[in-house]
């Protein structure tokens, strides 16, 4: 968000560079970058909520909804087009968030967190019980088509990465514009003192509801893209540890910019990949220690490394 204050060139530059880069990356990096950016999208939504003083421990709900929307559409309607699937995921998450947000917007702090967690676990329980959907084994999602073009698996991964880059840039652009708008500035105001905001005449609950739906849509998009990249969906995507990971990356990245979530996701994946590969018997400890060190030395998140000046803006 602060990036835009400096001038609107940073966002298109970063994502344009990524798009160009994606053409020369090795297949493994293509896959990895897709997953990183998709998870970054989810975290972007959490960033907006965090600035409002709310931490959702249940974003996995929408992550899963997006993924299962894609999977079910492919399985039962034969819908293969990536754009249509993405739109479907967005619609499904938005619908669910509209309903649930109406209840959740009245809660704060730990109660918001726990209630959002409860909803995601209820979905988890439902999915596990559903043998039609494969229960905990889930089911496979075949490679998508792109507006009628049905590429082979390798090309499909590249195309998917480009789609993800586009989604990530659109998402962060919209987030940045929103946060710069008057309603967007309400985020930190609500976090600081909600009652005063009410007295000033702004509808706090409606604002929270809007942010919640926005975050849900981002999470749904992320879930859809991960489902397409990994090619497999299962109820684990809605489990609380998945939500926990997203929260982790959010705080790791810090609240500094709409680009921070993507950097945070990249670093998390990098640490995890290395830890699993080179410390197969102790990777969880390595992950925990690395993350602790990062929190200790970079309390405002990894993005604080890039802050050149202190800004008056939150």
């Amino acid at each position, binding site marked *: 968000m602060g990036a835009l204050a400096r001038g609107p060139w940073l966002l298109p530059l970063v994502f344009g560079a990524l798009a160009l880069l994606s053409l020369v990356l090795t297949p*493994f990096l293509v896959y990895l*970058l897709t997953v990183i950016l998709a998870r970054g999208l989810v975290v972007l939504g959490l960033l907006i909520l965090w600035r409002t003083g709310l931490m959702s421990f249940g974003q996995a709900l929408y992550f899963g909804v997006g993924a299962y929307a894609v999977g079910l559409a492919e399985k039962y309607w034969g819908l293969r087009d990536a754009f249509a699937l993405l739109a479907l995921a967005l619609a499904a998450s938005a619908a669910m968030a509209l309903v649930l947000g109406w209840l959740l917007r009245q809660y704060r702090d730990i109660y918001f967190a726990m209630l959002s967690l409860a909803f995601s676990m209820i979905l988890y329980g439902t999915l*596990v019980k559903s043998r039609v959907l494969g229960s*905990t084994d889930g089911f496979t999602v075949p490679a998508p088509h792109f507006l009628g073009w049905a590429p082979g698996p390798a090309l499909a991964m590249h195309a998917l990465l480009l789609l993800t880059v586009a989604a990530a840039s659109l998402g962060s652009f919209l987030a940045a514009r929103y946060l710069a708008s008057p309603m967007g500035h309400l985020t930190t105001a609500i976090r600081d003192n909600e009652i005063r905001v009410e007295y000033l005449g702004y509808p706090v609950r409606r604002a929270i509801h809007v942010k919640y739906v926005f975050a849900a849509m981002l999470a749904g998009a992320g879930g859809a893209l991960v489902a397409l990249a990994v*090619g497999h969906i299962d109820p684990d995507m809605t489990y609380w540890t998945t939500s926990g990971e997203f929260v982790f990356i959010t705080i790791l990245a810090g609240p500094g910019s709409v680009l921070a979530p993507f950097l945070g996701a990249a670093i998390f994946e*990098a640490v995890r990949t290395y830890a699993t*590969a080179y410390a197969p018997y102790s990777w969880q400890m390595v992950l925990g220690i690395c993350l602790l060190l990062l929190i200790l030395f970079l309390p405002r998140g990894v993005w*604080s490394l890039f*802050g050149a*000046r202190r800004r008056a803006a939150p």
Partner: protein
Amino acid sequence: MTKFTAKAGWWLGAAALAGIVPVQQAAAQDAATVKLGVVTFLSGAAAGPFGIPSRNAAELVVEAINAGTLPAPYNSKGFAGAKLEPIIIDENGSTTEVVQNYRDLVQRRGATAVVGYVSSGSCLGVAPVAEELKTLTVFFDCGTPRIFEDEDHHYVFRASATSTIDSTSAARYMVSRYKDMKAFTGINQNYAWGQDSWSDFEGAIKDLKPGLKEEDPLFPKLFAGQYSAEITTLLAKDADVVHSSFWGGDLESFVLQADPRGLFQKERFYISTAETAMFRLGPKLADGIIMGARGPWGVYSHDTELNRWFRHAYTDRFGTPPVYPSYQMALSLLGTKLAYDKAAAANPKPGVEDVVRAFTGLEFEVFGTKIAMAQGKGHQGIHEIAQGTYKYDKATTTPTITDIVYYPAECVSPPEGTKSTDWIKDGMKGAKNCP
């Protein structure tokens, strides 16, 4: 924040991504070695009963293959003469992570073949990626029949039989031993493995004894650990026979909580993975429990030179006898070796297509049991299975299994081309040579 820290930040970010770029160039395959990925649970709840025993077996067998010290027909060195370089990674994590680690293994670290996977979810997630990356992948333990029933695969193989044979053979064993049973029920963990195992058993036992009464089966949460309410419910019910696919910590907790309350004396239990716990629980496991081992493995294995070597070497090195996951890993490695060797007969430096062709439809004997890659268009193995009853020998303080019955493959497996759930629903037609 200074300009220096900002620069440092950019380098950090770049390093994070760049560090994942492969250092060496794309798979400059050294013809004299085969980089073999081995994937199993090194942490988490499945490590104790399945992961570590299979990891141990992999270590043992890979060493022996490289040294060429195994009995015939496995006595040549390596895979088609090429030395094995194992890369062992942890299967623990979400399916997304498992798939990512598989890609890392193949695309970044250059594995040319992968043997692994305990969890059915992992297998289902990895199979399409194996096809995409055109890498020979052999699943050694996961039980779901869906792998080859839902889709055809070219590069994926599984020499161990599916979990269908556990339930069908158990049902036959129960029916033949407990002729006066009137009611049955089950207690299984509430996830795919538990639900599918129960559904197969329920269908099979109803096929064999149509008049049997079914009490509501129980499905406690996976890793619940606390079963007092379930045990009370089972004690209050009328079932003579109970099916369970509990494993690991849940299995042990359940046994430790149920035994003092007399549950195993009141009802006859079949536990499909019980063999993994028999040496650990010893006298705490009640006599009379029917022990599944997913095949004629562990103490059910036939006496052959290979088996004698395996049991002796494993117990020597790891302090405890090998259990069925160890056998499954061993046979998967040995089957893969045979495929490589067979392919080498035609082409001394076999490529993946040669090995795939050799593996398809392969028939081989291991630990005294014949395995035929006869399902899944030649990619899925079938073999016999044994069931028996637990008896703790107090005199020698040894866990033993008595009243062993072997069920041949053609009795307990569905015919090629038929889905196992359909086969059971239709009454297991065509099952022959059943004892």
